[in-house]
């Protein structure tokens, strides 16, 4: 349900860009989704057909690129993958870190005519 609501928002945003650029049809939509973003790719793919029904995106394919969650340890400065390390620095095991990337949810591009 969350995914559908947000995807409807995405469809509106893409439709605006498409209209501004005289796009006639869209074959593919490419999104970038961070590992820490609450949008789950599996669910997004499931509800995508419902979100695009009756819009310029109807019939298009959805491609999702994952952005790896990266954190920088506040203690020793080590940069590491947050999911893999389960939030603890593999170098010094401290759990305080700054998130460098992984929260993104970006409309990257469309393949269109």
């Amino acid at each position, binding site marked *: *349900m*969350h995914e*559908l*609501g*947000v995807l*409807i*928002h*995405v469809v509106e*945003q*893409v439709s605006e*860009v*498409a209209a501004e*650029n005289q*796009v006639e049809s869209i*074959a593919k939509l490419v999104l970038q989704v961070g590992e820490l973003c*609450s949008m789950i790719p599996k669910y997004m793919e499931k509800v995508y057909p419902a979100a695009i029904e009756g819009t310029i995106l109807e019939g298009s394919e959805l491609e999702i690129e994952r952005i790896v969650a990266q954190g920088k340890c506040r203690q020793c400065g080590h940069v590491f993958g947050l999911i893999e390390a389960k939030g603890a620095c593999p170098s010094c095991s401290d759990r305080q870190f700054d998130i460098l990337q992984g929260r*993104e*949810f*970006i*409309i*990257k*591009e*469309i*393949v*269109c*005519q």
Partner: protein
Amino acid sequence: MEKFRILEIKESVFEDNNVQADLLRAELKEQKTFLLNVMSSPGAGKTTTLKKTVNALKDQLNIGVMEADIDSDVDAATMAETGVRVIQLHTGGMCHLDADMTRQGLEGMGMENLDLVILENVGNLVCPAEFDTGAAKNAMILSVPEGDDKPLKYPLMFSICDVLLINKIDVLPYFNFDMEACIERVKKLSPNIKIIPICAQTGEGMEEWYEWLHTETKKWNEK
């Protein structure tokens, strides 16, 4: 057949809403209207808490209430008993309100001469946290039966809130709810959050909450 081209968009989905929210917040500041966004799970006691709050503050402040739900107007009907300006918003299946819907609601209700507008968001701990409504402050109500582990499960919600009401403390003896652990978990996510344990039903702790809201409203509307 025509060749396909790639059109780069590179737009953050939440960015568009963030811009709208900042704009709305600035306008509300100008008009001296304090917008409070209240979030919780379904059944945490939002409507009961807010009805009491409105009754306690309506003689000192001009208040408006926006009830957001997927469907029905039961909350608006309950809130209308207080006599303040109330509007029911239907999100049409959407699980949250965004800044644009909030603006539409405010315009529908009429914002003139309101010191405080309370937005009762859709009962949900996930999506409302992602979408800035343009509110001056965010409040969350967590009720004891939901459990002290909610900050662990919904970190974003707790990290964006300015005030947390822990409701239904009258049933603490019957639940395995560790208040100290809960507070510690919340503070880890949001070090400056104000936490007020309350029981909306009996009124326990409510004075502190009224005072917080009254002070914050005055602060916002003065500057």
